[in-house]
C-alpha cells in the first residue's frame, strides 16, 4: 500500500485538538514574568527561554513527523519550507514564509507576520534586551537537531522592538550523519 502523501498545515491544524490562543498567550506571559523575577538578568532569561524551547523542540518534532506524514527532506531548503509552512501552522495556527536564501542554501529567514505569543505584550524600558519569543528559536533548534541538523537560530527582526514582522534567521551549521545503534533491517 502506497504511503499517504504529506498533509498540508491547514488540514492538520483542523484535525488536531485546539485550545484558545489566549490561554496559551497568557501562560507564556506568566512564564516570562516568572523568569524575569527569578533571573533578573535579561540575557539569562533569553538563554533560559531558548533552553525551554529546545526541550520542547526535541519532543515536538516527533509529533510533527507523526502527524504531518512528510517524507525525508532532500535538502535544507525543503526542510525550511516544510517547517515554516506545515510546522508553524499545525502548532501555532499561523503561517510562516521562508525568504532570504543565501548562495549556498544553508542560511534562510523564516518570517512570521502573526504571532500568538505576543498578543497584548509590550516590552517595558527595563527589558529592552529581551527576546520575548526566544522560545521559538529554541524549538526550531531542538527540532532540527533531532533530525540530524545542527543549526544556529537568531532573531533578525522583532515586532516588540519596533519592527513590522518577526524574522528568524536559521543557519545550518552542519549535518550530523545518523548513527544506528543497531543493525537497520527494514
Amino acid at each position, binding site marked *: 500500500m502506497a504511503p499517504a502523501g504529506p498533509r498540508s498545515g491547514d488540514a492538520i491544524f483542523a484535525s488536531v485538538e485546539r485550545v484558545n490562543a489566549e490561554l496559551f498567550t*497568557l501562560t507564556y506571559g*506568566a512564564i516570562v514574568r516568572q523568569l524575569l523575577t527569578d533571573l533578573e538578568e535579561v540575557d539569562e532569561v533569553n538563554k533560559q527561554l531558548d533552553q525551554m524551547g529546545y526541550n520542547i523542540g526535541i519532543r515536538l518534532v516527533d509529533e510533527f513527523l507523526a502527524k504531518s506524514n512528510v517524507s525525508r527532506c532532500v535538502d535544507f531548503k525543503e526542510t525550511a519550507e516544510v517547517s515554516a509552512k506545515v510546522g508553524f501552522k499545525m502548532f501555532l495556527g499561523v503561517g510562516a514564509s521562508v525568504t532570504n536564501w543565501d548562495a549556498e542554501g544553508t542560511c534562510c529567514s523564516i518570517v512570521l507576520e502573526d504571532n500568538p505569543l505576543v498578543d497584548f505584550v*509590550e516590552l517595558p524600558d527595563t527589558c529592552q534586551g529581551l527576546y520575548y519569543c526566544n522560545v521559538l528559536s529554541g524549538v526550531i533548534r531542538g527540532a532540527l537537531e533531532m533530525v540530524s541538523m545542527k543549526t544556529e537560530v537568531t532573531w533578525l527582526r522583532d515586532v516588540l522592538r519596533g519592527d513590522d514582522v518577526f524574522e528568524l534567521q536559521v543557519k545550518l551549521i552542519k549535518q550530523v550523519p545518523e548513527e544506528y545503534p543497531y543493525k537497520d533491517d527494514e
Partner: protein
Amino acid sequence: MIGASKIKQYSNVLEKPLSKGKQEVSLSAFAFLFSELVQYNQTQVDNIAELERRLEDAGYAVGARCLELLCHREKCVMFMPFWLSQGNRRETRLLGILSFVHSTVWKVLFGKVADSLEKGTEHEDEYMISEKELLVNRFISIPKDMGTFNCGAFVAGIVRGVLDSAGFPAVVTAHFVPMEGQQRPRTTILIKFAEEVLRREARLG
C-alpha cells in the same frame, strides 16, 4: 507600489484594536508549554507546597488578565446566559461571580463549561467547581513520591486571580477526588471565600 498601505504601527499596545478572541493554537503546543512551566518550577523549589504555590502564582496572573479581557469583550459575547448579557455589568453577588467563573471563564479558556458547581456542605464559605479531567492535567502523570500534588494548582490560581480582581478575595486550591469505577480521579477546585465577602453578601441580602 501605488495604493499599498503599510500596516499601521501602534505605538502603544493598548491602542491596538482588541481581537475577537477566536484564534486558536494546537492543544499540544499548550501542553508542551505547560510542561516546561512545571519542569522549570520544579528546579526552583525544594518541596511540593512551594511548587504548588509557584504554579498558583503563575495562574493568578493569567486569571487577573483574563477577567479584564472578558469584561472588555462582554458586548460581543454570544454564549452567555441571557440574564448575564446586559453588557458592561460588574458582578457584585457571590453566585453571579461563581457562575461567571464556572461558565464564561471556563468556556473561554477550556472550550467548555465546568462540569459542576457545588456549595460546600460543611462550611458556609466553601464552593467547589469540579472537572472530570482538567485540560492542563491531560498529559500529566504524577509520580507516587509527589503525593497529592496537582498541577491543577495553575487553574486554582487562575480562579483566584479572577475572583480577586473582581473583588471576591478567596483561597483557592485544587484537589484530586477519586471516583468510583474511574481510573483517573476527578479534580475539584475548592474556593474558600474571605470573611469580608460573606459579610458583604449577607448585607446585600
